[in-house]
């Protein structure tokens, strides 16, 4: 008798869609996937309603890849629903893992985001100062919109997560490996593991030339240097998150002559990739006097967005404390 097919679900929370596309990027392998699995829920590709999922028995889905952060009540509702209906729930991609790019909204607050988006942005015309309402009565009945939360949260701050598969987006090859491991019934790693990654950080794989003499007098943005394509970015004064970022991506950005942005998150031994990277950067500043050190540090553009680009809500900081104005 044929083995029963796996039931697979893919969902996007606060996401850009790139993670769903990375699933599609399996290309022909999709046929292999479909030989072994039925896609029971995937909003970007299939017309399956929430109520269909709600009707499933608990634990009905074998594997759910949840991408995107939790930003509103809809994300939270579906996260909780899929948790109940899934045997294995994977936080898929940087946003579900640690909050991702949407998580940088934790540097501000809901009121300020609404003000910018609905009143101030250059492309907005809103003479009646309309703001999104969760409930709105029209003649046909009542409309409902999800509630926009003040905080962006990674998936594991909302529900219990079995595995994390980081990346912005995760490398499709890693997804296929993970999928095949589940299909073939291979021994699964302990719950809570980050999968589809290696243990060490990116520098271990990166073939650029590195020495212990990382000394920085001036921080550069990538366009400000004549990159020789060979020397460690940090040794050229360009902030590369490689040392504080888990490998597994195949250092593709660096191969493309762009420094690492840190989408794979920290190693399992580091709690807070931003703090870790800032400490490491601190050791590289080539100055002794406080004024000179300050002057060098001032050159770092957007430190929060640089060091916590993908990880702010999942870091120890979680958010910036803002006054409610």
């Amino acid at each position, binding site marked *: 008798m044929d083995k029963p097919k796996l039931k697979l679900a893919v969902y996007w929370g606060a996401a850009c869609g790139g993670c769903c596309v990375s699933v599609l990027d399996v290309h022909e392998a999709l046929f292999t996937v479909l030989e072994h699995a039925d896609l029971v829920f995937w909003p970007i590709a299939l017309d399956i309603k929430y109520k269909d999922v709600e009707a499933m028995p608990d634990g009905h889905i074998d594997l759910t890849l949840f991408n995107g952060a939790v930003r509103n009540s809809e994300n939270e509702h579906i996260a909780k629903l899929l948790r109940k209906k899934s045997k294995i729930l994977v936080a898929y991609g940087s946003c579900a893992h640690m909050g991702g790019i949407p998580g940088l909204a934790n540097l501000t607050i809901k009121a300020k985001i609404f003000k910018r988006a609905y009143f101030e942005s250059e492309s907005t015309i809103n003479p009646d100062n309309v703001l999104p309402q969760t409930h709105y009565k029209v003649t046909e009945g009542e409309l409902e919109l999800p509630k926009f939360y003040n905080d962006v949260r990674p998936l594991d701050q909302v529900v219990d997560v079995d595995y994390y598969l980081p990346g912005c987006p995760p490398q499709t090859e890693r997804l296929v490996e993970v999928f095949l491991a589940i299909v073939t019934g291979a021994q699964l790693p302990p719950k809570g593991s980050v999968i589809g990654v290696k243990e060490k950080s990116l*520098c271990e794989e990166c073939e650029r030339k590195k020495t212990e003499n990382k000394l920085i007098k001036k921080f550069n943005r990538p366009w400000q240097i004549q990159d020789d394509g060979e020397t460690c970015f940090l040794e050229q004064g360009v902030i590369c998150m490689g*040392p*504080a970022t888990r490998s597994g991506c195949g250092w593709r950005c660096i191969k493309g002559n762009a420094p690492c942005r840190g989408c794979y998150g920290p190693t399992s031994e580091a709690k807070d990739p931003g703090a870790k990277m800032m400490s*490491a950067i601190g050791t590289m500043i080539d100055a002794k006097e406080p004024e000179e050190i300050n002057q060098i540090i001032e050159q770092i553009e957007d430190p929060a967005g640089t060091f916590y680009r993908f990880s702010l809500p999942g870091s120890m900081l979680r958010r910036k404390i803002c006054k409610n104005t």
Partner: protein
Amino acid sequence: MEEKRIGVYICWCGTNISLMVDVETVAKEMAKLPNVVISKDYKYVCSDPGQDIIIKDIKEHNLNRIVVASCSPRMHELTFRKTLVKAGLNPYYFEMANIREQDSWVHTDRVEATKKAKALIAAAINRVSFHEALDSRSVEINPATFIIGGGISGLSAALEIADSGKKVFLIERSGRMGGHVADFDLTFPYMYSAQQMITPLIQRVKSHQNIELFLNSEIKEIFGYIGNFESTIHSKDGKETAVKFGNVIIATGLKTFDPSNIENYGYGKLPDVITSFEFEKMLLNGIIKTKDGKEPKNIAIIHCVGSRNKNYHEYCSRTCCMTALKYANQIRCELPKANIFDIYADMRSFGKGCEEFYTLSSRRNIKFLMFDQENDLPKIVSANSGDNCDMLIEINEKLTGKTIEVPADMVILMVGMEARENAKEIAHAVGISMCGNSFYIERHPKLDPVATTTNGVYIAGGCQAPKEIPDSVAQAKAAAARILATIAKGSVEVEVTTACVNEDFCCGCQTCIKVCPYTAISFDAEKKVSVVNEVLCKGCGTCGSGCPTGAIKCKHFTDMQILSQIEGIMKISHLELQEA
């Protein structure tokens, strides 16, 4: 994971803590925290009966973690670690909350101080759950000692060690031993002959079977760690000798201040303005004469030349006042009719026999004049033909408040002491630290004045700070005694709370290597990982915070231990907030 069974002991410290902290309430509340099996308060937990309570509880209640809330860990951490050992527990299963120095002693509000005690103890309770057992480690001691510098300190230390039958390598940069003392005539305050002191020492060192002497020699670097150092001695004739040794004494001494830069004194321009060391040479040769061979009728001695003045050195060079008095006395003996002017800032005659020497000197027709060494230096000028002397010293005399002119045919500048020009290279070669004045820093200014922060490296004599002969000798012999004690033991315990690299996570970025102040980390090019030499490591944690991957763990200061401690503090503040 084993179940955590925590015992908490809150000390009254008599009334030191109990006056400001409600210890009984604190003990009751701590008992409610997770994993706390027992929570008690006691008058003096550090006393024998106090420690016995802990030992008894550990056995009766199967406790495996202990928190004592009392004084600073600097005071009693070791005491309580030993208590744990007595009860059969690993000493590192202990955590101390400092509710005395950091709480009861510094606050005046009992309610607030009690709250703070709760927070500090909750933090310790949280932390101790994550404590891991650490085993003490020791290294064997090579019984040979390496001494750099053949002055009075180096010679004294060398003989002390060699006489006990242990090997000494003594290296001296110049071609002769004895250092500055070999250039002295008499010594204050008892007027003993320096030559008669130093010559026998030099002779004994030269002929000692346990001392291997390297004159005209230097080292570039010392490798290794306590018990197991090695280096290569480079001799000026090109010879190289590899040596191995277990301990090091740095006794490189100091040098004299060059007064050429002090314009007022005209040193280098006025021929009979000389330094104290140049005058010492005259005394040694028994001839006090001006440059053109005349006997000086008027001799002035100026103190604090290069010392106690922001433009030169802010510190006191300690020996010059007494040396100046020695000169005044010697001049009085040699030239009974000469006028002697002792121009001082304030007479520093501390130490055994020194104040008496000053009193004695003041009865020998020596004129003492006081000046302001910080803002108002005397000015030395050539005299006119009618002045009946070679030079005039203009001085704003502080005691009379008058500006006076002092005649002089010879002026002796009591030059201060400063660190040697190569002090930094030596510090680098052996891995010790310097203070702002380039003197070497002792491990503790009061309690450990001859050791350095590098185990197995000791400092003695003028390289640590200007000092007189008996202080140098005492320091040298203390260093020798310390070394002989470790040699006698045969091995020495080394720090266990060190950093270690988890090779599974190290990416080989080498961030840690350059931040290590003890050069304890090296790079294994084959494995592409950093390696900590745990004997050199002092557990300062710099590498651990710099490590971007979290591969470096600082034992006893892991992320989990520190974060849980912070959470413990937050937890109590949070509870207080909820109550309010």
